[in-house]
């Protein structure tokens, strides 16, 4: 060999050796170290400017006064500000025109859904299908009317809501108290069943005609189809709020029924735009007239 290669790269070791295995030292670039120092400086700056150190109640606030909760409040305010013109338009429109409006139709339904999910699903259910005693809002049977104005009025003023003088109010007597004998109640119940062709005792049902005419027809109508202006349910259709079997009907006649709903326009519960939104949403669930 003429001569050794003169500039062969030499790698230092750290001086550590285990069983003859040495640890090579390939040094990191120095700027890498500087970026590490930079992160420390950054960290100190962050601790001064932003909430950082936990205290017993909360944390150090930081010079910038940042809080994630505050950011959310700002975002909500920004969204509300952006929605304000839409809400103004919803208030200015005819109720019946809102759903079909190209500018606010979809917004009204979506916003109404949000209102519904917040305030209504506790009784009517997340799918608005109701349950025993709480009306299904998807079907086509409405106690107080299913057009948009009626729905809006019901939501605004509630049902049997003491706090609102314009509330929906109907009062079925407790016939079991003094008005009717158990015999007459049984006759009336069989007559009600006969309206949907389900009477089990023809003689009682025939006798019930008179009982019904004298005691029930004033609100429910001679044919039992009810009256949305009196809040009297239709007894001649397939839908029953409390149940359509003989036992339930007998109990209803004997003890009466009277569900309640808050008047959502009172006590600052919902504002005008929200009332209209949720009315549109309910009207668009499939049963709206």
């Amino acid at each position, binding site marked *: 060999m003429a001569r050794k*290669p003169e500039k062969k*790269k030499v790698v230092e070791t750290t*001086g550590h050796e285990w069983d003859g295995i040495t640890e090579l030292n390939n040094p*990191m670039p120095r700027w890498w170290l500087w970026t590490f120092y930079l992160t420390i400086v950054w960290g100190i700056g962050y601790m001064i400017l932003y909430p950082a150190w936990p205290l017993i109640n909360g944390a150090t606030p930081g010079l910038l006064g940042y809080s994630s909760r505050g950011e959310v409040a700002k975002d909500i305010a920004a969204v509300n500000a952006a929605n304000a013109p839409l809400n103004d338009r919803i208030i200015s429109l005819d109720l019946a025109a809102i759903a079909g409006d190209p500018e606010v139709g979809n917004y009204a339904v979506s916003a109404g859904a949000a209102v519904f999910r917040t305030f209504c699903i506790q009784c009517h259910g997340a*799918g608005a299908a109701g349950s025993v005693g709480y009306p299904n809002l998807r079907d086509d049977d409405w106690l107080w009317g299913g057009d948009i104005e009626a729905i809006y009025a019901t939501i605004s003023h509630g049902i049997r809501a003491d706090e609102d003088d314009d509330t929906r109010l109907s009062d079925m007597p407790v016939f079991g108290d003094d008005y009717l004998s158990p015999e007459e109640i049984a006759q009336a119940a069989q007559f009600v069943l006969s309206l949907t062709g389900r009477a089990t005792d023809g003689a009682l049902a025939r006798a019930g005609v008179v009982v019904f005419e004298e005691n029930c027809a004033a609100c429910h109508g001679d044919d039992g189809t009810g009256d949305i202006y009196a809040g009297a349910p239709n007894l001649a259709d397939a839908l029953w709020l409390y149940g359509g079997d003989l036992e339930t009907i007998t109990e209803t006649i004997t003890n009466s029924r009277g569900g309640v709903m808050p008047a959502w326009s009172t006590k600052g519960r919902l504002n005008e735009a929200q009332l209209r939104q949720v009315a549109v949403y309910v009207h*668009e669930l499939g049963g709206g007239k």
Partner: protein
Amino acid sequence: MSTETHEDAPKLYAAREPVFPKRVKGKFRQLKWWLMIFTLGVYYITPWIRWDRGPNMPDQAVLIDMANRRFFMFWIEIWPYEFYFVAGLLIMAGLGLFLFTSALGRVWCGFACPQTVWVDLYVQVERWIEGDRNARIRLLNRKWDAYKWRMRLTKWAAWLVIAVLTGGAWVFYFADAPTLLVELFTGQAAFVAYAFIVSLTATTFVFGGFMQEQICTYMCPWPRIQAAMMDEDTMTVSYRDWRGEPRAKLKASLADSSLGDCIDCNACVAVCPVGIDIRDGQQLECITCALCIDACDEMMIKVGRPTGLIAYLTANDEPLERAGEPPRNMWKHLIRPRTIMYVVLLSAVGIGLLVALFVRAEIEVNVAPIRNPDFVVLSDGTIRNDYDIRILNKHGEERQFIVTAETDEHNSEFKVVLQGLEGVVVTAPADDTLIVRVYLLAAPDNHAARRERTGVHIWIEDLKSGDTAHVETLFNGKAP
């Protein structure tokens, strides 16, 4: 590599050793110039290619339209739910990289990686302004006088212009390029556009001008992964030490025939953009740019010795060559189970994507049944099920669709009612999705009303073209 131990605490950090790649001529340099022109050309020109798609559609050939969630690529339009096309393309790109890496080593790093291409451009600009290797070394060691300031400031300004153009071109892929260009200059463009230009300008300037090979050596994970794809048949840039060693200066070499072909001219070291000596063997810094091959061949021709002292070699051929036998044919290395497997996978994904591309429809319909409640009983005993259907109209014009429902079950039929509409015809806007609430009604005496579940097809028919699409779902009845 030799090692040495010493008593002092070892230094854990070292300053960067500046690299001054010397100008070189040769076939690989030529290839790199053409690749640079091609890749930069594609990058800068693509957003400006126009493509007519009709009145309601963008006319930019390649456009990533974030606001409307569309990706346009010439005649292909990709909707968000078709993002598997993009995923497929990325998988193909990955497999392509595997293929090239297993065949040719870090060929991506050396020739096509944006970092390499831009650094190559930056170094060339530096060469034009400050001179070649020796002039640049002198300039580095010069004290900061007016001349050095002038050179440095000129170079940085030129780099900055390139950086701004690089960052500036990027945003044109995301909006209509001619419109955006005007908006950028009149200050009307979106904040995000300026933010991207500023940040990409900064990264280009710093990565291309100052970080250079350190990005590859310290920051990029890809070179480390590539080692897993290389084997003894991979062709990569190597030094034939059995031919070159023992090296000696030309004069000594001419006098003593026992010496190797390497004349120790350091040409390979001078041109290296990562500052290594290829004669030390394969090193993790090496991006296989092949410029040392050009440099060495040039010298070998000058001194009248055979070229190829540094060349693309495989580890498998080394023992053959040491024994004085010729290396095997290049294709024997390139075509082997590993590369064949990558080609097969690549083709499979590619063919799959092509098939998917040709069979996808211009209209589609999806359904989301409303299952809370399962069904609604109406006052006359009719059973109603509610569905939200989503009609995708990929035409560049609005289309009308008739919605129908049918079932194979006997004595079952449905009435279709659309929320808020008279009749069963809906109008879907151009290149958009329309969500319609559909009600299916089954009369009380209908079997579907009394069966727990009935399969049903919801059809849409394009009134203009007659195209149809359907979706399968279930109708829930009130079981007795």
